[in-house]
């Protein structure tokens, strides 16, 4: 009996505290009845070894107690697909933003050495781990809220009864380009991340560290400054992002979020050429200027020319890629329209 008591005490430690006594009393009654029957069958008390074997067969105390715990998840099956999607998106963006910030920071210095590059690369796992940890913490908090009935799980997971198969574009535009239709979670995540990007980008003029990181400090104390012509470029990007965000919100409200809007993509790509054009038309390609040209020209003039020349080359490359994408998109859409017309005959 002593072993049984010890076993029950071990189970107690893992039981929900508010029902410990009640559960344990019931378990004890059931196990004692079972034990009595065993001993009556044998005509003698169980030996210590037999008792140990029997208790072992009941399972480890922690496992026995686990059955009485409510089913708990860090992130349950209802949210896991959304969590997984957001995690991939967040890791991707974290990688991109970190890379841009690091490259800008390193180039804002004079000449980054190999050790600085190695250090920057070595920090990537840490950045990704922190991003994953934050996303996981947020989703675990949501799951916790749902388990406490603070939120409606079906509404959050997009599986409420208000959902209908009409939410989504017609079949014809669904599989264009072989892309999978988007889920509601993806559409919501697009809006959330679109809004976050817009907020982040709007914060750049007043808080340049959000884009340059520690490089903002270096840049402020450097002899260089950005040309005022970048202001209209900035507002074009803001307008473009706001347009995309608005479009996505309208898609969500209208219930047409399932498809990848080809027209939207085309319009945004065309409008996106305008700010690039503005940048390319900057007189003498002076995107970066010297704060005190008369003082610093001799010392930093060569660096300045190199920076502006680098920006010019990068811009040309970006414009070429965007134009090629646009041409490809137009050709593809024309071919698809032609195929549909032929099929309809």
């Amino acid at each position, binding site marked *: 009996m002593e072993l049984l008591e010890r076993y029950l005490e071990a189970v107690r430690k893992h039981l929900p505290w508010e029902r410990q006594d009640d559960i344990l009393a*019931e378990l004890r*009654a059931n196990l004692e009845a*079972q034990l009595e029957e065993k001993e009556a069958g044998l005509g003698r008390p169980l030996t210590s070894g037999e008792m140990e074997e029997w208790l072992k067969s009941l399972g480890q105390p922690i496992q026995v107690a686990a059955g009485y715990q409510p089913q708990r998840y860090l992130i349950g099956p209802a949210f896991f697909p959304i969590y997984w999607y957001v995690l991939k998106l967040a890791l991707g963006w974290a990688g991109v933003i970190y890379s841009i910030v690091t490259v800008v920071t390193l180039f804002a210095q004079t000449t980054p050495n190999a050790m600085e590059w190695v250090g920057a690369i070595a920090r990537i796992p840490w950045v990704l781990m922190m991003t994953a940890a934050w996303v996981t913490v947020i989703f675990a908090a949501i799951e916790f809220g749902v388990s406490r009935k603070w939120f409606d799980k079906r509404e959050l997971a997009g599986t409420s009864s208000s959902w209908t198969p009409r939410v989504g574009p017609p079949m014809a535009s669904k599989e264009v380009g072989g892309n999978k239709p988007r889920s509601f979670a993806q559409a919501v995540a697009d809006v959330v991340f679109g809004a976050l990007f817009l907020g982040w980008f709007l914060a750049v003029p007043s808080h340049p560290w959000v884009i340059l990181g520690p490089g903002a400090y270096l840049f402020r104390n450097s002899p260089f400054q950005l040309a005022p012509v970048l202001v209209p470029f900035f507002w074009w990007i803001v307008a473009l992002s706001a347009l995309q965000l608005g479009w996505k919100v309208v898609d969500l409200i209208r219930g047409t979020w399932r498809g990848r809007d080809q027209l939207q993509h085309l319009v945004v790509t065309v409008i996106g050429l305008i700010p690039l054009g503005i940048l390319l038309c900057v007189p003498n390609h002076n995107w970066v200027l010297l704060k005190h040209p008369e003082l610093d020209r001799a010392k930093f003039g060569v660096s300045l020319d190199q920076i502006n020349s680098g920006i010019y080359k990068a811009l040309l490359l970006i414009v070429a890629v965007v134009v090629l994408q646009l041409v490809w998109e137009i050709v593809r859409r024309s071919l698809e329209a032609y195929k549909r017309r032929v099929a309809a005959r």
Partner: protein
Amino acid sequence: MTLSESIFENLRLELRRGCLTLAVLAQLRQERYGYTLRKALAERGLEIDESTLYPLLRRLEAQGLLASEWREEDKRNKRFYRLNEDGERMLGQLLEEWQALNAAITASLGMDGIEAPASSGDASG
């Protein structure tokens, strides 16, 4: 355990999970406490672990399908469970579902000319 044995074990547990609830509800049309319920199920060929059965009784009670009371029997306090009205109704609905499923599977096997494979392993869980 081979991969196919492991897959079989998972599928078997999934299949049993719902059936066990049905069997427990069916047995509790008559009042019983945990251990006698376990014995009654075992006598009818449904072995069930203590660590599965006793928490299941608590869950069914929390779902409002069972009524329970502490009572002394053989000089020992025991918690007796019995189906309440909601439990009776639920059992009826589940039995209908079970019979429909059973009929559908039997019909499918008959129509397709597939013979049920020989059973392997016991029914414990």
